[in-house]
């Protein structure tokens, strides 16, 4: 049975969250699952997106909502009261053999299993979503660099979805064809406080990864080198307006 590192971070600053994921991708030699929250509402946009096409910039500035470009593709996400995971794994074994689209489906399995264990009828919707009914509860995005894959994604717990729609410019074509509605865990699971819901979800996600990927976890924090790298990446990329506003090579 393989041993993975498990990192559980409480709410961190949005640019730090992205920097830590990126530092782990660059430096780690062992598979790592990181679970984290956000200290303040924020928007991340996909690597290939144009900020002005996805986000009402002036409103974000007015309300102090940072907008950060991710290393990964995919769509714009409003992060608030969600559990985010990031998984870094060498391109070996099932993750190395599978195509990118298949690996989305593969990594969705423990997330779906975790949600189902909480009574949520979650299903995978290609390419990179997990849905309940026809509504999205989790979006996921992957990059592959340095012989490793990084996949990170959200599980919406108590996100204010009306607030979310204020900040994002959602294309009517997309709403028409895909349906954009999202759903949060707190809309489905009743009788739990928000904090209890986060606790249960963290337990459910870690045990689902253990069971489905046959791994053991060793809980740890990021290394000193990863911390130093994250400081540098946060400064030069994720809190840097040039990176966040324009697509540059990472």
């Amino acid at each position, binding site marked *: 049975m393989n041993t993975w590192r498990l990192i559980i971070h409480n709410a961190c600053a949005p640019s730090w969250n992205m920097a830590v994921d990126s530092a782990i991708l660059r430096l780690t030699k062992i598979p790592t699952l990181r679970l984290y929250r956000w200290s303040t509402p924020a928007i991340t946009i*996909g*690597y*290939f*997106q*144009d900020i002005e*096409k996805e986000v009402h910039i002036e409103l974000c500035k007015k309300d102090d909502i940072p907008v950060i470009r991710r*290393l*990964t*593709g*995919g*769509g*714009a996400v409003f992060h608030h009261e969600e559990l985010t995971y990031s998984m870094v794994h060498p391109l070996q074994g099932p993750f190395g053999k599978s*195509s*990118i*689209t298949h690996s989305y489906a593969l990594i969705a399995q423990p997330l779906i299993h975790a949600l189902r264990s909480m009574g949520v009828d979650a299903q995978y919707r*290609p*390419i*990179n979503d997990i849905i309940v009914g026809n509504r999205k509860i989790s979006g996921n*995005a*992957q*990059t*592959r*660099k340095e012989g490793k894959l990084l996949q990170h994604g959200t599980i919406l717990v108590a996100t204010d979805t009306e607030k979310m729609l204020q900040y994002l410019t959602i*294309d009517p*074509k*997309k709403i028409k*064809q895909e349906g954009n509605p999202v759903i949060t865990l707190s809309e489905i699971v009743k009788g739990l406080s928000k904090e209890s819901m986060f606790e249960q979800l963290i337990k459910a996600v870690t045990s689902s990864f253990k069971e489905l990927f046959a791994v053991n976890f060793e809980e740890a924090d990021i290394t000193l080198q990863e911390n130093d790298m994250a400081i540098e990446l946060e400064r030069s990329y994720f809190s840097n307006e040039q990176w966040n506003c324009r*697509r540059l*090579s*990472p």
Partner: protein
Amino acid sequence: MSIHVVLKNPGEKLVHIDIDFEKSTISWIHISGDFFIYPEEAIGDIEQALLGLPVAPQVIEQTIFTLIKNNDIEMVGISVSTIVQGIQEAFAQS
């Protein structure tokens, strides 16, 4: 002034194409959206390779396919045919 087209083909992600033409050739192009391309930097190579090409579907298609093959590029949620379609739609508007 550049032309902007938005495409959402079944099974794909949203693709924006901003483009300028000089006579019948592509003089500037920027492709954006919520798709995935691996490695990510390849988007710049694709845009660069299209500059100066005539708006001829076969030429554009062949150029991108060659780039994909030679550089081990993988596209998810976007296709060569969608890029060609976007260029043609924009050209029709020019």
